Structures are given as structure tokens and as C-alpha cells.
């Protein structure tokens, strides 16, 4: 038996809350996963184990679904998640410069999580606010019409 840690308890608790909300049905799997992902920030293995038992779904199927959707993460992420839109409408109005600035500011060469686990940088497809490109999201906040000068200011708002 794995050692019961605070994280494990939180992972199991999140599953119970999600299933209580949506019901223990296979077709509610995506809303359930979404709920846990929002609650904890990612989908811990312990959560997937618990869902597998409660929903009577093989874990392989759970992982195949969890790894398919962009908003779900099976890896632990940083405290704040930056989603940068890399689609064409943002790209042609200056997205190239913004992503470079972001990477420089965060000291990242490619996308991923910074060593202090404060930031995770993810590339994403369209966020649906194309009229104000370039666009990126920090957690739930959308920033549009971003200029390179604004990037450090925006990042400094998050502690």
C-alpha cells in the first residue's frame, strides 16, 4: 500500500467531490476529469486510480482520455499556468516576439515548467479572442493586445 500523504488524500477527495456532482457515470468522465483538473491543477495518478474504481473503467481507458484533451494534464504543473496562443491570427500580429519574450522572462528554452515550479508555459491553439491578438492566458485571466514591454509587468502581478 502506498503511504497516505496529504496529496493522496486531496487527490481522492477531489474525485469524490467530482463524482458527487456529476454522478458515477462513464459518460460524465470528461466533466469529472475537468473538475479534478481545476481543483488540483492536474490529474494525479491517485485520482485516476480512484476514478477507475468508482466508475468501473479500466485505467488504460482513463489515461487515453486524460492524455487526449489539452485542458487536462497528467503531469504536475507550476503554480501558475501560462497558455500562449500559437495560432495564425496571433502569430501574424506579433505573437513571435511575445513568445520569445515570455521564454526569456521565464528562463525557458522550450515549453514546460520552470525549475522553481512557479510557472508552466504551454502552447495552445486558438483561445477564441482573436480580435485582440497576440493573446495569452495566465491561469483564468486573458491578456490581449500584448506588447513585449507588457510581458514583465503582467508576470509581476502573480506571486
Amino acid at each position, binding site marked *: 500500500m502506498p503511504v497516505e500523504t496529504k496529496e493522496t488524500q486531496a487527490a481522492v477527495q477531489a474525485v469524490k467531490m467530482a463524482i458527487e456532482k456529476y454522478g458515477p*457515470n*462513464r*459518460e*460524465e*468522465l*470528461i*466533466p469529472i*476529469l*475537468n473538475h479534478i483538473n481545476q481543483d488540483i491543477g492536474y490529474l494525479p495518478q491517485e485520482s485516476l486510480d480512484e476514478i477507475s474504481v468508482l466508475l468501473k473503467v479500466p485505467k488504460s481507458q482513463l489515461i*487515453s*482520455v486524460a492524455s*487526449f*484533451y*489539452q*485542458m*487536462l494534464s497528467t503531469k504536475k504543473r507550476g503554480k501558475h499556468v501560462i497558455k500562449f496562443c*500559437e*495560432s*495564425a*491570427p496571433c*502569430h*501574424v*500580429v506579433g505573437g513571435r516576439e511575445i513568445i520569445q519574450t515570455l521564454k526569456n522572462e521565464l528562463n525557458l528554452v522550450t515549453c514546460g515548467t520552470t525549475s522553481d515550479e512557479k510557472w508552466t508555459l504551454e*502552447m*495552445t*491553439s*486558438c*483561445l*477564441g*479572442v*482573436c*480580435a*485582440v*491578438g497576440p493573446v495569452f492566458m495566465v491561469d*483564468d*485571466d*486573458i491578456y*490581449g493586445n500584448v506588447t513585449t514591454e507588457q510581458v514583465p509587468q503582467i508576470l509581476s502581478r502573480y506571486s
Partner: protein
Amino acid sequence: MNTIRSMVLVSSDAMSMDAGAQEVFTRLQNEIHSFNLEKEVSVSMVSDIGRHDSVPMVIVYPEATLYGPVRPDDVHFLVEEHLYKGRIAAGLQAPVKELTGKIAWLSSRKGTLPAEQRIVLERAGVIDPTSLDDYILHDGYQALGTVLTSMSAQDVIAVLEKSGLRGRGGAGFPTGTKWKFVSRTAGPKKYVVCNADESEPGTFKDRLILEGDPHSLIEAMTIAAYTVGADEGYIYIRGEYVLAQERLKTAIAQAKEMGFLGKGIFGTNFNFDLHIHAGAGAYICGEETALIESIEGKRGEPRARPPYPTTNGLWDRPTLVNNVETLANVPPIIRNGADWFRSFGTPSSPGTKVYTILGNVNVTGLVEVPMGITLREVISIYAKGMKNGGTFKLAQTGGSSGSIIPSTLQDTPMDFDSFNKTGVSLGSGALLICNEETCVVDLAKVLVNFFVNEGCGKCNPCRIGGNRSLNILTNISEGVGTLDDLNTLIELSENLYQLSNCGLGQTAGVPQRDILKYFRSEVEAHIQLKVCPAGVCAMSGQRVY
């Protein structure tokens, strides 16, 4: 009943909310109260007002004075000046020259700007999307009443077929015909599904309808369910559209309470139940069979077709899948008749189309105009020309899965058939306008990269072909491509089109095909001269793949 002399509307689309619209609204209520004006002035939150450069915006009717961006601290001054003293609050007005959207339409009556023709966005930005009363006051649920009390399913299909409405999701399939297929399929249980998984880059028209006029979608889906014989429906909405989801939830609850959804609608024996299913971030789920898989709680991998969803859809039952904009056209058609609808647009593509205008132009945003207007008109009239006096080089239409249109084709009427003849795709209505600083190789790279990221990985042509194309394009952008590569790109594009399982794979090769068709010399310059004419590509001379 008390008479209201002024109506104050606050924009509350996602961007406005982000910029503090809620606070402005609360302050407005407080200020109006403290000036003792609440009997004379109404204030409501509406959705997108049609401008994104100065949110949050406030409009005061009947003068149609537009203020923006309004900060919470400006509200006291605005109320005192405009509503109490009756003069324009100096310094707060939004810059007039860049008007788009609803405001453009309103001021067009004064002969200042070209008119839009709003059918599906008629109420967006005018009514309070969280108020069912507002919707009903603007002819809401009238079409549903007519259908349930005096029309048969055949009557509805006949009207739709006569109207010539075609699907607005991209393919342009005749809506009446699709409804007829589902209605004729026998079965004890059928479903109606609304595709609101608007993930096409550059497209946000459905978000505006969902955020600004959610009841119109519910009304249209109920009509659809009655027509095809379904009693359950799903709205598949993309996970990123949080505000739209909230608005829809509120609207569904209101409709249930008033008996527009649920059992025995309008006192008939027709029942319809509607659910919202939020996606979790996957472009491919906009493909109708992938969407159905996703509702069933699986990976969003497209099914092999046929059988089509019209016979074997959700949980293997006959299913009608329609786009938000398509459905939003239905109630106005029922209310005003097929002939009215045919008075807009072209004979083969009647009605209007919502375009989202993006890129290197002066005014970005969205317009709803009759089908058949040209790209040149859109750029010069609605987008107010190219930004910083740039030159129009190309437009990328219909999001990633659309086509690239060179400036030489900008006078083609934008409707389904004219576009088909020229070999381009109207797609979802996104118009990404690019100036001469855009490199076609770089653009194709971004577009193909999108397909590589968003492909589901189920079928080989798409999974392998997409990656191969991206590698070759990357090499060309680094200055190490060969002329032979161009033949490979064409071959890959054809293979993708012919062999892929779904629409995503079939269009994944379009960018490379289009740039070689219209801008071959520019691509060859990368290879033969080792120069990127637009100065965008890195041209490092290093082979990446």
C-alpha cells in the same frame, strides 16, 4: 407601467468582463440610485457591443451615445453629466472613427457608415442575455410557439428547404435536407446536438451568439427537436468558453422554469430536455463524429463515415448535428418566412454570414453581412483599410482549415458556390488579413503545426503526412530546402486530401498547396536564393530534420 426615458447598456463579453465591466455596472446602479433616477433610467448588462478596442463600453439610448473605455471612477461623472444634466459626458466618448458592429449599424441610419445586416446577431449587444423577459420582448420564443401550435415537421422542413439555408460551420450542407434525413430515419430515440466547439483559429462568432443571445439557440434547438422527432439535446461547448457556459446554464434554467423546455412545451405533448456538455480543449471535437465520441466520454477520435450521424450518431441513435450560427438562423426564418430570408445574400447562398476580421487591418472584430460581399469590400469598408498603410498580400479564410486567398482574388464574391469555383473554402468565416510583412512559408508552417498538434493520431495519412510536411516547411524556412521538396509537399497534400479519415486531415495539406499555387516564386526564393523576401524566416542554413 412606468416609462423609461433612457436605457443604459454595459458590454459584458469576456473581454469587457476582464476589463472590469461588472464593477462599472454595479457603480452605475448605485449612482443612478443616488441621483434618484431609477424610475426613469434602466441599466442592463448586454453582451458584445461590437468593439474590442475600448472595453468596457457603455451605450446610452435613445441618443446611442457610446462611451468607452469606462473605468469605475468615471461612472459618477457619466451619470451626473449624461443622465442627470442631460449632456454628453465630455472626454469619455469612444473614438468615433473606428465604429464596427451594432453601433455601425445604428449609426448607418444617419448615413455615416455602411450598413451591416444582422439576423443571427440581431439581439446580441442589445438585450440582457441573462433576462428571459428581454428575449421575449424581442420576439423571442415566438417562432417556437408558431411551430408547436400550427406547423407539422414537414412544414418546418419545407420552409427551411425553401429558404436555402446552408450550414454555417464550414461545409455549407443544406440545413433543410439534413433535418429531413434525421426526421425520416425511424427510431424510438433521436438526439439533437449543437456544435459549439468553436476552435477554428480566428473564429469567435458562435461565442458572441452564446454570450449575447443564448435563448435563441435554445429556441432553435427545440424547434429542431420537434421537427426531427428528438426529445433530448446536447450543446457541446468548448471548455475555454467559461462565460458562454454560464450564460447558457442560466438560460436553460429560465427556459425550463417558463415551460419552453421540459415536458409538455406550449401545452402540447412535446417534450424536450437540453444538456450542456463542456469540452476539454480539442480542436478535433468540432468534427461531428469526434464530438459525438467526446459526449460519450471517450477520446475525440472521428468515426469512419458512412454511416453518418443522421442514422448512427450519439449512442448509435439518429442524431442531428448543427452549428450554432446555422441554428440561430432558424427562428428568424420561421418568423419572417423563406422569401424574406432569400432577399439577403445570393441565390445559391441566401442569408447573412458572420465574419471575424483579424490581422493587419485597422479595425478587427466581427460583422454580419449578406453572403456574396467581396473581400475588397470587407477590407476597405468594415476593416477600414490596412494597418499603417500596409499592402494587402493575402487573406487566410475560414480558420486553419480554410484557404489562402491572394490579393488577385479579392474581388471574388464570398459565398459557398463562387468560392468553390475558385477552389477556395469559405469555412467558418474567419478572415485573417495579412500584409506584405507576412512570409508564406512561415504562415504555412504555423498552420501545418496547428494540424500536427490538433490531429487525433488515429489515421496514418494525417499523423505521418502532417509531420512530414512540417519538417519540410521548417527546412525551407531555414534555407536548406530543395526544389524536390516542393514536389513532395504537393504529393503529401494530395495524399492527405484523398486518404485521411476526417475533414481535419483532408484540409491539413491545404496551406502548402495554396502557397505553392499562388506564391511559388516566394517559396523558391527561400530555396534557390536562400533569402526570405519578407525577412521573417530564420534562414540559419542549419538542417533541422
